[in-house]
């Protein structure tokens, strides 16, 4: 280990930081619906997920061995600087999407960053175009569709079968089942994503000549990668958890169970059959499917749309940041230092921005997040008017009633604001001090 240079050390630290953001970003995949249905308390849920991620990191090193070789051509002269630039791109994009509360794939950010940096420093030859399409594009499109359809079918089935059962009796069972499914997702995530970081660190060690090509990751790499992802998971990306658990649709215990089981099944089936699908897209697709599958369930397509836009942007955005970082890196040690400083500054700015509207374990289930959008208001009204499983056949009718009521409320609100607007206009034109009465009207609206 005495061969490790300062540069390799920086790359390893950066890779562990990426691993941390990865855990933090992907807690939502396993735990968002578990938290929003109340199957587990927020703190317990993230703690369980963290432990399972840590366990998962030790289970296998198969992914770590293949991650580096597939998309980037190891033999084309990749330097540690390039890996560093790629990681910086991936970390910054992960933090930006976290700030926006959007679940995007950490793996895609990593691939995008590595590809972007490779293109700048080695040229297009260093990138394997077919591998990008096969390993990134097709899985990203297929994952939400497969998971969504499976979950829609499962949600329909379970609501139909358990139609005449007491909701308070069934909720307990659904929650227990959901915890099991969520545990599987966490474990699978640990084996997959912690290993990606191990693969990157191993790649850095290989390119730096510290260890021989094609060797297994050393033990200290496995331990540190596992710990970094577990710590990130435990701190919890509460913003993303809120979007997945509450923002896309309102999840009830049967839906949460169906979505989490669908996600676990798709992840395991795909990795076992050898057509790996991205965890984030699978889980998001499953949540949307659960929303579609319930009668009276509402999917907020505006939120879903923003999420899909973030997915589409992930690869190019992380790639562009990495491009810029790689360009700076070319200017020797000063360039690398500049990239490091800029990256730390960028992370600091994003963290400061996040403090303006903090989301944590205490308010992750609060309905306030999406209610800024008019869609959220409509959904809240529908939900309060029509509790769907109890409504059975009448739920569709209830839902339309709810929409009507909301429309009424909207128009009356608009009316009220018109009134207050005209009142303040009058005040302004008469240039008189506002009387207590008009001041009161203004403040109530």
């Amino acid at each position, binding site marked *: 280990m005495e061969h490790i240079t300062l540069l390799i050390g920086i790359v390893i630290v950066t890779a562990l930081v990426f691993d941390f953001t990865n855990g933090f970003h992907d807690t939502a995949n396993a735990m968002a619906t578990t938290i929003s249905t109340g199957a587990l308390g927020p703190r317990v849920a993230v703690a369980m997920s963290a432990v399972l991620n840590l366990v*998962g990191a030790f*289970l*296998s090193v198969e992914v770590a061995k293949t991650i580096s070789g597939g998309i980037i051509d190891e033999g084309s002269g990749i330097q540690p600087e390039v890996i560093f630039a790629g990681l910086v791109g991936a970390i910054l994009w992960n933090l930006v999407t976290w700030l926006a509360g959007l679940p995007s794939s950490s793996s895609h950010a990593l691939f995008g960053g590595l590809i972007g940096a490779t293109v700048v420093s080695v040229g297009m030859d260093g990138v394997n175009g*077919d591998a990008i*399409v*096969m390993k990134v594009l*097709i899985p990203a499109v*297929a994952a939400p569709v*497969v*998971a969504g*359809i*499976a*979950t829609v*079918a*499962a*949600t329909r*089935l*379970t609501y139909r*079968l*358990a139609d*005449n*059962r*007491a*909701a308070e*009796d*069934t909720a307990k*069972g*659904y929650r227990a*089942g959901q915890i*099991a*499914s969520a545990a*599987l997702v966490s*474990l*699978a995530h640990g*084996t997959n994503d912690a290993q990606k970081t191990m693969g990157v660190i191993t790649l850095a060690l290989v390119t730096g000549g510290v260890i021989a090509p094609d060797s297994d990751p050393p033990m200290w790499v496995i331990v540190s990668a596992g710990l970094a992802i577990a710590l990130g998971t435990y701190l919890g990306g509460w913003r993303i958890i809120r979007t997945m658990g509450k923002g896309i649709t309102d999840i009830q215990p*049967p839906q949460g*169970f*169906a979505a989490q*089981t*669908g996600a*676990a*099944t*798709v992840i*395991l*089936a*795909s*990795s*076992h*059959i*050898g*057509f790996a*699908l991205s965890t984030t897209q699978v889980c998001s697709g499953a949540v949307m499917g659960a929303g579609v599958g319930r009668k009276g369930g509402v999917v907020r397509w505006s939120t879903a749309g923003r999420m899909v836009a973030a997915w589409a942007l992930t690869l190019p955005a992380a790639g562009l940041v990495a491009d810029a970082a790689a360009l700076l890196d070319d200017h020797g040690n000063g360039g690398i230092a500049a990239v490091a400083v800029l990256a730390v500054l960028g992370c600091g700015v994003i963290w400061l921005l996040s403090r303006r509207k903090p989301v944590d374990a205490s308010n992750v289930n609060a309905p306030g997040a999406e209610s800024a959008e008019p869609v959220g208001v409509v959904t809240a009204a529908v939900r309060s008017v029509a509790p769907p499983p*109890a409504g059975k056949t009448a739920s569709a009718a209830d839902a339309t009633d709810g929409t009507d009521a909301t429309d009424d409320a909207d128009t009356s609100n608009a009316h009220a604001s018109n009134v207050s607007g005209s009142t303040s206009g009058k005040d302004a034109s008469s240039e008189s001090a506002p009387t207590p009465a008009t001041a009161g009207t203004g403040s109530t609206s």
Partner: protein
Amino acid sequence: MHIDWAALGQVFGVSLAVTVGVVGVFTLGIIGTSRTAQPQPQAAAGGASPVARTGAYACFALCAAVVAYGIYLIVA
């Protein structure tokens, strides 16, 4: 460019079948162990019948086996 449609189709088929299967069986278990949602709780005293309860436990055991197989797939 070669896209492995067969593998993708297989993933889709297996995922759909297993998800619907597991959720269905688990729901049967839940039905076996819960009371019906009647306004007047005349069934509340006895709860589910012993036969239904046994069947429900069999359903849960089947689901547990599927989870165990899932863990086996992750480890192997």
